[in-house]
């Protein structure tokens, strides 16, 4: 298992290097930079040109890339042109918020998906199954941002059961119990909104996987051994059916990134997603690049975690 993990880890390095080059090139390919547009039109163009020269914006791309990546490795993503503060500090404030939101969403996702998937798969073609499958179709059909708005309107605005913005009640002191509770309280509604929508693919996946595994030959073997129905599920069907769910985990992380971008914006939750959308609109090149790179690394890490989980549960993909 350690061999597989190490090998898988080494594969990640060229992936990340390639990703960083792509991200950089794409950001450069976007029209305009932080000095175009918003500046006072009466400013002398030669002044702007001099400023560009000073910031290194006229260097060939590989020089700019090298400057950027060597600093990035040391944790310096440059200055945000708009917020007038280091990108690292800017992201650092928000990254923990997003990580917590993602984590709680993931927990909700699996808390919903696993029992529903099991019921639906085990008792397929019953009323319970039809109800659950009906829900998954609704989940597939409903766009996340509309559903989030609906949740915000119903639970936040109408019932006033949850806060509608921010990540914590203002005025609380970090480190106190009250502060932590307030944080969790602010996460619940956006996380639940996201989980209810993103979980449906996992429910469907688990359902069809269980129905599939039920018909495999080794289940007959288990029956012929005299194993009871519940033992067949716990010892034979579930473990085999959860494999693709584990493999799906990396993809889940990618979906989560897309989800947080919308949900944070809708719930005015100060995370990376909200910053991302704002920075794109303000053409804050250094922030966007740093965020895309981080998102990219997060999905690469997600698939790494998938593969490690798989190598733990599936003996067939371990390297001997």
């Amino acid at each position, binding site marked *: 298992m350690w061999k597989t993990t190490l090998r898988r880890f080494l594969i990640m390095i060229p992936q990340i290097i390639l990703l960083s080059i792509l991200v950089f090139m794409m950001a450069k390919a976007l029209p305009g930079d932080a000095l175009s547009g918003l500046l006072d039109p009466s400013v002398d163009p030669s002044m702007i040109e001099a400023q560009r020269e000073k910031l290194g914006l006229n260097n060939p791309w590989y020089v700019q890339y090298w400057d950027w990546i060597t600093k990035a490795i040391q944790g310096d993503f440059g200055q945000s042109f708009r917020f007038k503060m280091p990108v690292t500090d800017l992201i650092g404030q928000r990254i923990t918020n997003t990580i917590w939101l993602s984590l709680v969403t993931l927990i909700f996702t699996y808390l919903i998906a696993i029992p529903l998937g099991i019921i639906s798969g085990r008792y397929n073609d019953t009323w319970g199954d039809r109800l659950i499958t009906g829900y998954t179709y609704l989940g597939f059909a409903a766009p996340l941002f509309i559903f989030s708005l609906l949740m915000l309107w119903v639970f936040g605005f109408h019932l006033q059961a949850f806060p509608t913005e921010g990540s914590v009640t203002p005025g609380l002191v970090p480190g106190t119990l009250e502060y932590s509770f307030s944080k969790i309280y602010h996460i619940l509604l956006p996380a639940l909104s996201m989980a209810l929508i993103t979980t449906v693919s996992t429910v469907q996946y688990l359902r069809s996987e269980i129905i599939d595994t039920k018909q495999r030959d*080794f289940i*007959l073997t288990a029956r*012929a051994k005299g*194993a009871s129905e519940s033992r067949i599920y716990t010892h034979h069907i579930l473990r*085999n059916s959860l*494999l693709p769910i584990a493999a799906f985990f990396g993809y889940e992380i990618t979906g989560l990134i897309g989800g947080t971008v919308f949900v944070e914006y809708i719930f005015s939750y100060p995370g990376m997603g909200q910053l991302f959308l704002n920075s794109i609109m303000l053409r804050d090149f250094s922030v966007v690049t740093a965020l895309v790179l981080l998102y990219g690394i997060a999905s690469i890490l997600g698939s790494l975690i998938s593969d490690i989980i798989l190598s733990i549960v599936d003996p067939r993909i371990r390297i001997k």
Partner: protein
Amino acid sequence: MNEELLTIENLSTSFPIAGQLYAAVDDVNLTVKKNEILAIVGESGSGKSALAFSIMGLHTRAQIQGHIYYKGQNLATMSPAELNRLRGNEVSMIFQDPLSALNPLMMIGEQIEEVLLLHESKSKTARSSKGSGQTRHSKKFRKEQTLDLLSQVGIPRPEYTYGQYPHELSGGMRQRVVIAMAIANQPHLLIADEPTTALDVTIQLQILELIRRLKEQMEAGIILITHDLGVVAEMADRVAVMYAGQIVEISSIHSLMSNAKHPYTRSLMSSIPTGNEKKTKLHVIQGVVPSLQHLPRQGCRFRSRIPWIEEAAHEADPQMHEVEPGHYVRCTCYKHFHFLDE
């Protein structure tokens, strides 16, 4: 020694297809005695496996009529819990495809131990004389038993194989593991459903030798399902020939080999390549076994595949006729049967 282990009476197993029931096993009667190998022969689709699955209670959607008496208890009406006490214990089964019959995520050792664990109380009484000082339910004891079973079925390095996963073993080795699981609790009745079909010829022989040796050791009754008449001649004491869900001929192996009666049995036998007459064309039975929905439910079911035999030769409602003591044939058409080129 001639004690009857299994008696099947008027067994029909039907499957619902588009709201209607179709019998894959149709009114089958047979018995299996202790220390005997009964072979069930027939083409694909003749209902052999459906019969075996009915005995083991492995069908999930089928409707079963008739009686399956194992030592006087009717398996067909047993509750799942009662059935689970017998399955893997007194009655066990070897499956056709060893490649898919093992759980890919469990170690070989765990899979064999599972069947020991599930029937622990039985092994306690059966083995009470042995292993003094051992805690019977201990993991260590089960592991010893498992290693013992692995070496019994001819696995060269039991300790090593114990910790391997199915994908690390060859087909022959996996079938040995499946057999080890089937014999773990020393069953009285063993059903082998085409145990050698998925294996190559050299391994086939070893597996058959193994099954025969185990029969002699355990004095179990064995139902051997196969479509290979060579295997039948090697192994069986008695043979039942199945066609389209019915038994068309049943007899001792000697009587069948020297004096096969039913047109289907004779066609099967002449379809075996002998190897010493290179010039002659191999006999082919015309057509295929009709599918479940298209089975003729009246008259002789083999009729459509021997169209040159006149209609009058068949019985309207084909019955079993005793042609020799213990040798039964269905339908009267056997009296008038000849091959097309005769």
